[in-house]
């Protein structure tokens, strides 16, 4: 018999759920809320906004911000800039300047979306000028960071660290999930159907991360009157339509899974899902990718 406590709350523009057999879930919830306040783009007083606004080349930051910047740099290097954390100005130009309301209907936005093609790195490779040394971030003034999904994966992992003494736990940070526990029990993980159908697949995970990235949830009509979403092609600064509407990746950590899912979606290429995953395509079909 397994007894777990569960807490659900809104955070990071989505839903956070924490389940654990032991641990102070109220404390972890307060940490999430603190991390959210630190990294939101929509509060000029947040640490992220202050960092982006700073004209200094070297900026002293909090340990959590340093961890985020480190994860963001790692994501860019691992994907050769496909997952680019320096696209904050582009995402604002695309129309994502505040918390979004109801998303566009996915089928309608796919009908109206431009021609499909894989995303590519930004030619300037601005992320190469980004570094963090302990608690000091260095970047050319004007290079602005977007927390994006990387923060969600990172925070799922940080919360998992706080629950490491628990027999079982799952932290779902708005789609980025960290699973584990000293009892080494397997937990079912269902992959949601972005078109509203039954779950597409079920994984059994004992320890590790799962993340889902997609173009259906954070979507809107852009300034050009075309459908838009939050996953940008770094080479154009415009929403990427690659033929993949949702990618789910498995990985040792939630942060790593987030990077792999996003890279798979932006490239339209399953080779990023080396630990396994699921791709959902424009026509509603899906493919389960086995780990290699």
């Amino acid at each position, binding site marked *: 018999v*397994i007894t777990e406590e569960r*807490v659900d709350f809104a955070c990071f523009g989505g839903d956070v*759920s924490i389940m654990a057999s032991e641990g102070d879930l109220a404390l972890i919830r307060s940490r999430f809320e603190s991390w959210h306040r630190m990294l939101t783009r929509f509060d000029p007083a947040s640490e992220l906004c202050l960092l982006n606004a700073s004209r200094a080349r070297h900026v002293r930051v909090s340990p959590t911000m340093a961890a985020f910047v480190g994860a963001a740099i790692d994501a860019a290097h691992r994907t050769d800039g496909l997952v680019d954390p320096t696209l904050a100005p582009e995402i604002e130009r695309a129309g994502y300047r505040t918390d979004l309301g109801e998303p566009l209907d996915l089928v309608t936005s796919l009908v109206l979306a431009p021609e499909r093609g894989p995303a590519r790195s930004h030619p300037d490779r601005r992320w190469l000028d980004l570094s963090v040394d302990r608690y000091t971030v260095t970047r050319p003034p004007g290079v602005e960071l977007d927390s994006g999904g990387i923060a969600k994966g990172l925070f799922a992992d940080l919360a998992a660290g706080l629950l490491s003494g628990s027999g079982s736990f799952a932290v779902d940070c708005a789609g980025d999930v960290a699973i584990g526990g000293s009892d080494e029990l397997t937990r079912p993980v*269902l992959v949601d159907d972005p078109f509203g159908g039954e779950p597409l697949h079920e994984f059994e995970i004992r320890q590790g991360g799962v993340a889902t*990235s997609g173009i259906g949830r954070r979507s809107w009509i852009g300034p050009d009157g075309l459908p838009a979403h939050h996953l940008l092609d770094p080479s154009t600064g415009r929403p990427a339509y690659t033929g993949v509407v949702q990618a789910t990746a498995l990985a040792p950590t939630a942060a790593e899974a987030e990077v792999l899912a996003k890279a798979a979606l932006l490239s339209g290429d399953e080779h990023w899902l080396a630990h396994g995953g699921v791709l959902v395509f424009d026509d509603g079909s899906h493919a389960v990718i086995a780990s290699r």
Partner: protein
Amino acid sequence: MNESISRRRRRAQLIRGRVVAGAVALFVAVFGGITAQLASGHDPALAKSKSKSTTTSTAKSTTNTLAPVTTKQS
């Protein structure tokens, strides 16, 4: 005259005694109640205040298998 004063004094003493006894009984009752509440582990100063929230829920579940998680876009 003296008898009248003496009677008044006795009456005043009787009333004073009743007031003191009542105050002592009230004191014992109130603090006895608080002591009993604290002893039972329900310190009102440590009680969590209830707050309304539309976005938060907590629950405890007991099952034979771990509850599933759904990974989805957000």
